[in-house]
């Protein structure tokens, strides 16, 4: 599942990033607490958060995340997109809640694994 697939499943838009990027989701972490995210020891994390700030992107970069999704159509500060561009972290804006995103992504990843 690539970042374009994620944007489609979550009815969102890819604000920053290459729609053709092939990097796949390795693990999904849903949190607004960045110290929690820093604790997760997994590769290619997709970060689901409601935190529309530069720090969500910087945290994603530190843990080597493959992308960040901001929920509830929260307005994204312009600096957030700039930092995402600089650090090459794909950024998706979705109208869904984090809970709804978790449910949809879980179903989609399960379907992908059993296929």
């Amino acid at each position: 599942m690539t970042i374009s697939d994620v944007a489609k499943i979550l009815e969102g838009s890819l604000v920053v990033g290459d729609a053709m990027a092939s990097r796949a989701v390795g693990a999904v972490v849903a949190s607004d607490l960045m110290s929690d995210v820093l604790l997760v020891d997994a590769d290619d994390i997709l970060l689901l958060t409601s935190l529309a700030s530069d720090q969500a992107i910087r945290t994603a970069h530190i843990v080597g995340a493959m992308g960040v999704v901001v929920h509830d159509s929260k307005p994204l500060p312009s600096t957030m997109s700039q930092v995402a561009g600089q650090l090459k972290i794909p950024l998706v804006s979705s109208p869904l809640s984090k809970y709804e995103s978790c449910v949809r992504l879980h179903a989609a990843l399960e379907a992908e694994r059993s296929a």
Partner: protein
Amino acid sequence: MAEVHKPVILPPPHASDDEIIARHPPIPRVTTDEDSPLVIMELLQRIKIRDVMRTDVVVLSRRDTMRRAQDLMRRNRISGIPIAEGGRLYGIVSVEDIIQALSGGWIDDVIVKHMSNHLIVLEADMPLAFALKYFENYNYGRFPVLNKEHRLVGLISQRDVTRTLLYELTLEINKLEKKAMQNSQAEASGDSQAAYLLREWSVLHNDLENAGKAANDIKAILREHNVDRRLTRRIAVAAYELEINICIHSHGGNLTFMIADDKATVIAKDTGPGIPDVVWACQDGTSTANDWIRSLGFGAGMGLANSKRVSDRFDIKSVMGKGTTVTCSFNLKPGGE
């Protein structure tokens, strides 16, 4: 771009203390130009106006005469006198007011008739950066300085600012030169402990906009050095947590990153206020953060605990009123001590 701030303007002399407090705006943050060297930005935030202002201020009361103001200015070689009673500032008389009084024939009038009472003042707790902005934005040679209770505590002039900045910059340059000399000596002597990579970042209090940049840089350095991906993440996590800690909990400080031989070290050093109980502070979930910090995704009390968890060696020293130094070390070779 530098921000332009609304001036602090005193309410009229008849205002009550409650009115004064209600009209007083909160202290906004100053951002200095991005191109300024970090050491200067840090100085302008660290040095407060109270450190620079003169406190031996000549004051007069509203009932004194303009002639007395003229006499005091001449004898003390000053160009402005605040008019205050019981610490409460009512106005200021400048050389220009005296010149007008002489030519207009009212030099023997009481000051209250001719003083300027539409005043722009600074607060003692504001960073020095504010004073520079005010001198830039308003055509005054000096500003009265008030404390939190809105009482006159000093006067600040451009000369005071220049003198302090020159002194502080000399100290900083001496420190940098000493450090550079130590590095070059260690390198020349072939000392195996000599750092072959040393970088330092200044971290400002409450500067959440820039917090994390140092950790992002450290991660990029580790990638350039082909350090293992998992180890890179551990070092970056420690650096990030410590950087955020300096930003939200301290008065400001520095984050240093070193690679020497087979060891990488992250050192976070701040200038206070210090941690009363470091054992307690290093436990998961212990926090003194406020709601603002939490709204930014931090402040759950996991910063020090996370840094300790990912480090091979962890050390913390804190002195109340002086500051805290946290050192996280990492073995770059598997199984290395």
